[in-house]
Protein backbone atom coordinates (compact mmCIF):
# COMPACT_ATOMS: atom_id res chain seq x y z
CA UNK A 1 0.00 0.00 0.00
CA UNK A 2 1.36 3.41 -0.89
CA UNK A 3 1.31 6.21 1.61
CA UNK A 4 1.17 8.84 -1.10
CA UNK A 5 -2.02 10.83 -1.26
CA UNK A 6 -4.05 10.61 -4.48
CA UNK A 7 -3.41 14.31 -5.07
CA UNK A 8 0.36 13.85 -4.63
CA UNK A 9 0.32 11.00 -7.13
CA UNK A 10 -1.59 13.02 -9.71
CA UNK A 11 0.69 16.05 -9.41
CA UNK A 12 3.75 13.77 -9.55
CA UNK A 13 6.14 16.43 -8.31
CA UNK A 14 7.94 14.58 -5.51
CA UNK A 15 9.58 16.27 -2.54
CA UNK A 16 11.42 18.91 -4.59
CA UNK A 17 8.02 20.32 -5.65
CA UNK A 18 9.12 21.32 -9.11
CA UNK A 19 9.46 17.99 -10.87
CA UNK A 20 11.24 18.23 -14.20
CA UNK A 21 10.72 21.98 -14.78
CA UNK A 22 14.40 22.86 -14.52
CA UNK A 23 15.51 20.06 -16.83
CA UNK A 24 12.93 21.01 -19.46
CA UNK A 25 13.65 24.75 -19.25
CA UNK A 26 17.35 24.09 -19.79
CA UNK A 27 16.74 21.93 -22.90
CA UNK A 28 14.13 24.25 -24.42
CA UNK A 29 16.29 27.35 -23.90
CA UNK A 30 19.29 25.49 -25.37
CA UNK A 31 17.32 24.68 -28.52
CA UNK A 32 16.25 28.32 -28.82
CA UNK A 33 19.85 29.46 -28.38
CA UNK A 34 21.17 27.45 -31.34
CA UNK A 35 19.58 29.68 -34.03
CA UNK A 36 19.78 32.86 -31.89
CA UNK A 37 23.51 32.67 -31.15
CA UNK A 38 24.43 31.58 -34.67
CA UNK A 39 22.33 34.37 -36.17
CA UNK A 40 24.00 36.90 -33.86
CA UNK A 41 27.55 35.84 -34.70
CA UNK A 42 26.92 35.53 -38.44
CA UNK A 43 25.27 38.98 -38.48
CA UNK A 44 28.27 40.56 -36.77
CA UNK A 45 30.56 38.79 -39.21
CA UNK A 46 28.52 39.99 -42.17
CA UNK A 47 28.89 43.67 -41.21
CA UNK A 48 31.06 45.38 -43.85
CA UNK A 49 32.75 47.48 -41.16
CA UNK A 50 32.84 46.73 -37.47
CA UNK A 51 32.64 50.08 -35.73
CA UNK A 52 30.38 52.21 -33.55
CA UNK A 53 28.28 53.68 -36.37
CA UNK A 54 27.79 50.39 -38.21
CA UNK A 55 26.89 48.52 -35.03
CA UNK A 56 24.36 51.12 -33.94
CA UNK A 57 22.80 51.17 -37.39
CA UNK A 58 22.57 47.38 -37.37
CA UNK A 59 21.03 47.25 -33.89
CA UNK A 60 18.51 49.93 -34.89
CA UNK A 61 16.89 47.61 -37.40
CA UNK A 62 13.70 46.32 -35.76
CA UNK A 63 14.56 42.76 -36.81
CA UNK A 64 18.04 42.71 -35.31
CA UNK A 65 17.02 44.64 -32.20
CA UNK A 66 14.16 42.24 -31.56
CA UNK A 67 16.31 39.13 -32.01
CA UNK A 68 19.06 40.63 -29.83
CA UNK A 69 16.54 41.20 -27.02
CA UNK A 70 15.43 37.57 -27.36
CA UNK A 71 19.07 36.44 -27.41
CA UNK A 72 20.01 38.29 -24.21
CA UNK A 73 16.82 37.17 -22.45
CA UNK A 74 17.15 33.48 -23.33
CA UNK A 75 20.91 33.52 -22.77
CA UNK A 76 20.41 35.01 -19.30
CA UNK A 77 17.79 32.42 -18.42
CA UNK A 78 19.94 29.54 -19.69
CA UNK A 79 23.02 30.84 -17.87
CA UNK A 80 21.03 31.20 -14.65
CA UNK A 81 19.71 27.64 -14.92
CA UNK A 82 23.22 26.30 -15.54
CA UNK A 83 25.06 28.21 -12.83
CA UNK A 84 22.59 27.43 -10.03
CA UNK A 85 23.13 23.70 -10.63
CA UNK A 86 26.86 24.18 -10.08
CA UNK A 87 26.15 25.91 -6.76
CA UNK A 88 23.65 23.20 -5.78
CA UNK A 89 26.26 20.55 -6.57
CA UNK A 90 29.30 22.04 -4.86
CA UNK A 91 28.19 24.48 -2.16
CA UNK A 92 27.13 22.37 0.77
CA UNK A 93 26.46 24.66 3.72
CA UNK A 94 22.86 25.86 3.74
CA UNK A 95 23.73 29.51 4.38
CA UNK A 96 26.39 29.80 1.69
CA UNK A 97 24.15 27.96 -0.76
CA UNK A 98 21.25 30.35 -0.19
CA UNK A 99 23.56 33.35 -0.43
CA UNK A 100 25.18 32.10 -3.67
CA UNK A 101 21.84 31.28 -5.26
CA UNK A 102 20.46 34.72 -4.38
CA UNK A 103 23.63 36.38 -5.67
CA UNK A 104 23.39 34.47 -8.97
CA UNK A 105 19.74 35.40 -9.35
CA UNK A 106 20.37 39.11 -8.74
CA UNK A 107 23.44 39.10 -10.99
CA UNK A 108 21.55 37.50 -13.88
CA UNK A 109 18.54 39.80 -13.61
CA UNK A 110 20.90 42.78 -13.42
CA UNK A 111 23.04 41.75 -16.41
CA UNK A 112 20.11 40.63 -18.53
CA UNK A 113 18.10 43.73 -17.66
CA UNK A 114 21.00 46.04 -18.47
CA UNK A 115 21.63 44.25 -21.77
CA UNK A 116 18.00 44.38 -22.89
CA UNK A 117 17.67 48.03 -21.82
CA UNK A 118 20.83 48.92 -23.75
CA UNK A 119 19.43 47.33 -26.93
CA UNK A 120 16.15 49.22 -26.50
CA UNK A 121 18.04 52.50 -26.02
CA UNK A 122 19.85 51.98 -29.32
CA UNK A 123 16.73 50.75 -31.08
CA UNK A 124 14.62 53.71 -29.97
CA UNK A 125 17.47 56.15 -30.43
CA UNK A 126 18.01 57.66 -26.99
Amino acid sequence: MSLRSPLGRVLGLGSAKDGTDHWWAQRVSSIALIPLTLWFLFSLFALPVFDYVALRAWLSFPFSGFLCVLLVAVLTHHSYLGTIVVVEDYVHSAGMKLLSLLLLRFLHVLAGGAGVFAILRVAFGS
Partner: protein
Amino acid sequence: MPVRARPTAPHLQIYRWQIGNSLSILHRLTGLALSLGLLALCYWLVSLAGGEKSYAAAAKVFASPLGLLGLVGWTFAFLYHLLNGVRHLFWDAGFGFERTARHASGWFAVLGSIALTACVWILIWAEHRT
Protein backbone atom coordinates in the same frame (compact mmCIF):
# COMPACT_ATOMS: atom_id res chain seq x y z
CA MET B 1 26.74 8.52 20.21
CA PRO B 2 29.54 9.75 17.95
CA VAL B 3 28.44 12.03 15.16
CA ARG B 4 29.44 10.67 11.80
CA ALA B 5 29.57 12.59 8.54
CA ARG B 6 26.61 11.86 6.35
CA PRO B 7 27.36 9.61 3.35
CA THR B 8 27.82 11.67 0.20
CA ALA B 9 27.46 10.89 -3.47
CA PRO B 10 30.66 9.99 -5.37
CA HIS B 11 32.58 13.17 -6.06
CA LEU B 12 34.63 14.27 -9.06
CA GLN B 13 37.96 12.77 -7.99
CA ILE B 14 36.63 9.23 -7.54
CA TYR B 15 36.13 8.58 -11.25
CA ARG B 16 38.75 7.28 -13.64
CA TRP B 17 39.53 9.93 -16.22
CA GLN B 18 38.24 9.04 -19.65
CA ILE B 19 36.68 10.84 -22.56
CA GLY B 20 33.10 10.64 -21.24
CA ASN B 21 33.56 12.35 -17.89
CA SER B 22 36.26 14.71 -19.18
CA LEU B 23 33.93 16.08 -21.83
CA SER B 24 31.11 16.34 -19.32
CA ILE B 25 33.32 18.39 -17.01
CA LEU B 26 34.51 20.49 -19.95
CA HIS B 27 30.86 21.14 -20.85
CA ARG B 28 30.25 22.58 -17.41
CA LEU B 29 33.49 24.59 -17.40
CA THR B 30 32.76 26.11 -20.81
CA GLY B 31 29.23 26.86 -19.57
CA LEU B 32 30.67 28.77 -16.62
CA ALA B 33 33.08 30.62 -18.91
CA LEU B 34 30.15 31.54 -21.15
CA SER B 35 28.27 32.92 -18.14
CA LEU B 36 31.18 35.35 -17.72
CA GLY B 37 30.88 35.95 -21.46
CA LEU B 38 27.25 36.97 -20.91
CA LEU B 39 28.47 39.67 -18.54
CA ALA B 40 30.97 40.81 -21.17
CA LEU B 41 28.25 40.84 -23.84
CA CYS B 42 25.98 42.96 -21.65
CA TYR B 43 28.86 45.32 -20.84
CA TRP B 44 29.53 45.67 -24.58
CA LEU B 45 25.86 46.39 -25.33
CA VAL B 46 25.65 48.96 -22.53
CA SER B 47 28.80 50.65 -23.84
CA LEU B 48 27.28 50.75 -27.34
CA ALA B 49 24.15 52.41 -25.96
CA GLY B 50 26.22 54.85 -23.92
CA GLY B 51 27.70 56.66 -26.90
CA GLU B 52 30.84 56.82 -28.99
CA LYS B 53 33.19 57.45 -26.05
CA SER B 54 32.02 54.56 -23.87
CA TYR B 55 32.04 52.24 -26.90
CA ALA B 56 35.63 53.21 -27.68
CA ALA B 57 36.60 52.44 -24.07
CA ALA B 58 34.96 49.00 -24.25
CA ALA B 59 36.53 48.29 -27.66
CA LYS B 60 39.90 49.09 -26.14
CA VAL B 61 39.30 46.60 -23.33
CA PHE B 62 38.38 43.85 -25.81
CA ALA B 63 41.35 44.67 -28.05
CA SER B 64 43.84 44.41 -25.17
CA PRO B 65 45.87 41.18 -24.87
CA LEU B 66 43.70 39.95 -22.00
CA GLY B 67 40.55 40.97 -23.88
CA LEU B 68 41.64 39.09 -26.99
CA LEU B 69 42.48 36.05 -24.90
CA GLY B 70 38.96 36.24 -23.49
CA LEU B 71 37.40 36.54 -26.94
CA VAL B 72 39.35 33.55 -28.31
CA GLY B 73 38.51 31.57 -25.17
CA TRP B 74 34.83 32.45 -25.42
CA THR B 75 34.82 31.47 -29.09
CA PHE B 76 36.10 28.01 -28.20
CA ALA B 77 33.82 27.75 -25.15
CA PHE B 78 30.80 28.70 -27.25
CA LEU B 79 31.59 26.30 -30.09
CA TYR B 80 32.35 23.41 -27.76
CA HIS B 81 29.28 24.06 -25.61
CA LEU B 82 27.20 24.25 -28.81
CA LEU B 83 28.52 21.02 -30.35
CA ASN B 84 28.52 19.07 -27.10
CA GLY B 85 25.12 20.54 -26.23
CA VAL B 86 23.70 19.13 -29.46
CA ARG B 87 25.28 15.82 -28.45
CA HIS B 88 23.41 16.01 -25.15
CA LEU B 89 20.16 16.79 -26.95
CA PHE B 90 20.58 13.66 -29.07
CA TRP B 91 21.08 11.63 -25.89
CA ASP B 92 17.97 13.21 -24.39
CA ALA B 93 16.06 12.05 -27.46
CA GLY B 94 17.44 8.54 -26.95
CA PHE B 95 20.10 8.36 -29.66
CA GLY B 96 23.87 7.84 -29.70
CA PHE B 97 24.42 5.85 -26.52
CA GLU B 98 26.53 3.09 -28.08
CA ARG B 99 30.22 3.14 -27.22
CA THR B 100 31.40 3.93 -30.76
CA ALA B 101 28.78 6.63 -31.30
CA ARG B 102 29.54 8.18 -27.90
CA HIS B 103 33.26 8.31 -28.56
CA ALA B 104 32.93 9.48 -32.15
CA SER B 105 30.54 12.30 -31.26
CA GLY B 106 32.76 13.29 -28.34
CA TRP B 107 35.85 13.59 -30.49
CA PHE B 108 33.80 15.41 -33.10
CA ALA B 109 32.77 17.99 -30.49
CA VAL B 110 36.34 18.53 -29.25
CA LEU B 111 38.16 18.56 -32.57
CA GLY B 112 35.30 20.37 -34.32
CA SER B 113 35.30 23.20 -31.80
CA ILE B 114 39.09 23.56 -31.94
CA ALA B 115 39.06 23.60 -35.75
CA LEU B 116 36.15 26.05 -35.93
CA THR B 117 37.78 28.37 -33.38
CA ALA B 118 40.93 28.39 -35.53
CA CYS B 119 38.86 29.09 -38.67
CA VAL B 120 36.98 31.97 -37.04
CA TRP B 121 40.13 33.69 -35.79
CA ILE B 122 42.08 33.15 -39.00
CA LEU B 123 39.17 34.79 -40.84
CA ILE B 124 39.13 37.71 -38.40
CA TRP B 125 42.89 38.10 -38.66
CA ALA B 126 42.78 38.00 -42.49
CA GLU B 127 39.98 40.56 -42.53
CA HIS B 128 41.86 42.79 -40.13
CA ARG B 129 44.97 42.83 -42.33
CA THR B 130 43.23 44.00 -45.49
